[in-house]
């Protein structure tokens, strides 16, 4: 049974019961009122009749005609005249008689007895009136009340039905909408037909609407996350496939072909190189995974020491390309971990080296912006297009794939750098122009601003 049906039935029964009970009591009151009126009227009539009779008897005594047959005659004339009015009159001598209202043959009868005044106190007048008028009136009243009851019930029933329908219509609409959400389709929300009501149903509607929107945005978020993951997987599959193709291919070559000493050596060194690349990739991804999970301890880091370390690592490559390195440090401290920052700036400097021509210039600088330490690495090399820039943070992406792969990169460097910098509350951004060069901005928290985070 639906809610509206339950409410409808309950309210209808309750109201009808109350109304009919009211009608019942009202009719009972009316009945008693009328009856007592009739009763007193009959009683008065009876009293006056007894006085009249007594006066007649007195007069008969004065005329000395007070005899049994005359008395009978008089009484029968009274009887006759009252019978027309539906009243039975009788005279009894020294007897007891039941008075009051009682029913006789479907009629209401009011019976009264009045003792005649002295000296005729031996006689008692009996007065029995059939209340015909009262009965028919009562019948009419009963019919009227019945009709009124039916009418009220009908009107109430229809009105209640319409009211409930109107009140609960949004609820059934809401129900179908929630069903759509549950089935994972539909728009998850939308406006209520007409204006939003200020009652609980209106609130419920708004809440469902809000819920639908939240679900939709969550779904969208999940979808984009999923797409990103899918992209990562695709990239990874490709990245795995390339070294595996080489390894398998050279192994097959070695087993099948009649290879000379030179070719054998070359094939084996390719196998070794590609295996190393694979394992390096695996290690980087594993450390990324671990790093994402745990909270690294942070401390005051001497950035000049970091850059000195990075320069030392890359000294050979810089010498090979005859790079001119220019440095200008205005801020020399940051908040984080030294060895991790070495990793970040080594990556950035390596990228700059790769992009640079022989005898190119690279600038490393630092300063303070908006309460952050800003560290920049800038090259005057090949640069990147906007499209390439938008992808460089994605794992396994390379702007210039042949170049970086030849040097053994897997396209994970910037992803790792980003992860590290963001872990310590910083951020990385790039500006680049094709053919002009690239500038990397690394924002790091300064030690004094981060003391509260403490180690």
């Amino acid at each position, binding site marked *: 049974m639906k809610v509206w049906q339950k409410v409808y039935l309950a309210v209808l029964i309750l109201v009808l019961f109350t109304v009919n009970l009211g009608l019942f009591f009202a009719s009972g009151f009316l009945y008693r009122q009328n009856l007592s009126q009739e009763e007193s009227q009959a009683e008065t009539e009876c009293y006056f009749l007894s006085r009249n009779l007594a006066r007649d008897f007195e007069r008969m005594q004065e005329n000395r005609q007070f005899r049994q047959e005359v008395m009978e005659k008089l009484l029968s004339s009274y009887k006759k005249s009252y019978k027309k009015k539906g009243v039975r009159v009788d005279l009894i001598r020294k007897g007891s008689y039941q008075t009051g209202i009682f029913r006789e043959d479907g009629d209401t009868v009011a019976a009264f007895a009045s003792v005649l005044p002295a000296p005729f106190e031996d006689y008692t007048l009996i007065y029995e009136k059939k209340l015909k008028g009262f009965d028919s009136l009562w019948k009419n009243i009963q019919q009227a009340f019945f009709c009124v009851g039916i009418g009220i019930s009908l009107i109430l029933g229809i009105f209640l039905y319409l009211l409930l329908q109107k009140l609960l219509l949004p609820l059934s609409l809401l129900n179908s909408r929630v069903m759509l959400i549950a089935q994972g389709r539909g728009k998850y929300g939308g406006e209520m037909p007409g204006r939003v009501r200020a009652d609980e149903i209106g609130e419920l509607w708004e809440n469902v609407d809000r819920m639908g929107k939240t679900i939709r945005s969550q779904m969208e978020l999940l979808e984009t996350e999923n797409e990103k993951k899918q992209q990562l997987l695709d990239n990874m599959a490709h990245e795995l*496939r390339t070294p*595996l193709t*080489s390894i398998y*291919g050279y192994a*097959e*070559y070695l087993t*099948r072909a*009649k290879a000379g000493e030179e070719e054998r050596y070359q094939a084996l060194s390719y196998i070794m190189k590609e295996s190393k690349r694979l394992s390096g990739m695996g290690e980087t991804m594993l450390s990324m995974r671990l790093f994402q999970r745990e909270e690294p301890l942070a401390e005051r880091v001497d950035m000049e020491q970091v850059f000195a370390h990075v320069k030392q690592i890359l000294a050979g490559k810089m010498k090979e390309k005859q790079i001119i390195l220019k440095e200008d440090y205005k801020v020399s401290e940051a908040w984080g971990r030294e060895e991790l920052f070495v990793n970040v700036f080594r990556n950035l400097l390596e990228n700059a080296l790769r992009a640079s021509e022989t005898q190119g210039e690279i600038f490393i600088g630092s300063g303070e912006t908006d309460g952050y330490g800003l560290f920049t690495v800038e090259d005057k090399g090949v640069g990147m297009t906007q499209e390439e820039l938008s992808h460089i943070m994605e794992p396994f992406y390379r702007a210039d*794939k*042949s170049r970086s792969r030849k040097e053994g990169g897997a396209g994970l460097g910037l992803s790792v750098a980003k992860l590290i910098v963001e872990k310590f509350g910083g951020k990385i951004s790039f500006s680049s122009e094709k053919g002009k060069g690239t500038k990397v901005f690394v924002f790091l928290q300064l030690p004094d601003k981060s003391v509260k985070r403490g180690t």
Partner: protein
Amino acid sequence: MADILIVEDEESINQLIKQNLMLSGHHCTQIFDGGEARRHLLKKPSYDVIIMDIMLPGVNGLELMRDTGDNPVIFLTAKDGISDKIAGLTSGAWDYLTKPFEMLELLARVNLILQKTKKEVDTLKIGKTKINLCARSVFISDREVELTPQEFELLEVLVRNRNIALSREQLLELAWGIDYMGDTRTVDVHINKLRKKLDFEDVIKTVYKMGYRLEV
């Protein structure tokens, strides 16, 4: 024999393709960059086969199809989606091969193209033995050697995959057909017959744990 251009940015794979093709005696030119390939094709526009990656630095393989002219192109790429394959084949390429690839498959596809374009030389001379694949005849110093059809079939497989070791199972499959239910010892018997008839004791080598290889 055939003149083949390899456009592949991955140095190790480029080298691998070259080494495999060189076993069949082909001449290879290696290029590692899309832009470079475009410039190179302007200078030397004719090749028997071009083996090309799709994801190339500079100009990608699909764009390079405009520069390859009538040369038969085989795409060799890690992109294995059906839409990538369709895009590759509708761009005018003759064939589409995905990485990781099997050496035998690459060679078979290259040979197929060479056969279709009649670029493959049908005769091969090994020492004093002259094999004509088209006429299905073998001569040793102008004296014709009688071979059964099955023996010739086996010889043809060995010649087409010369310098590459083939397992007994592979030989059964290639020379007898995939439905043949025979024993791998059938292969040994036929190899021995070929060695005797053609005096190929040193040409058809037994490769340890692998099978046989016809060395040129």
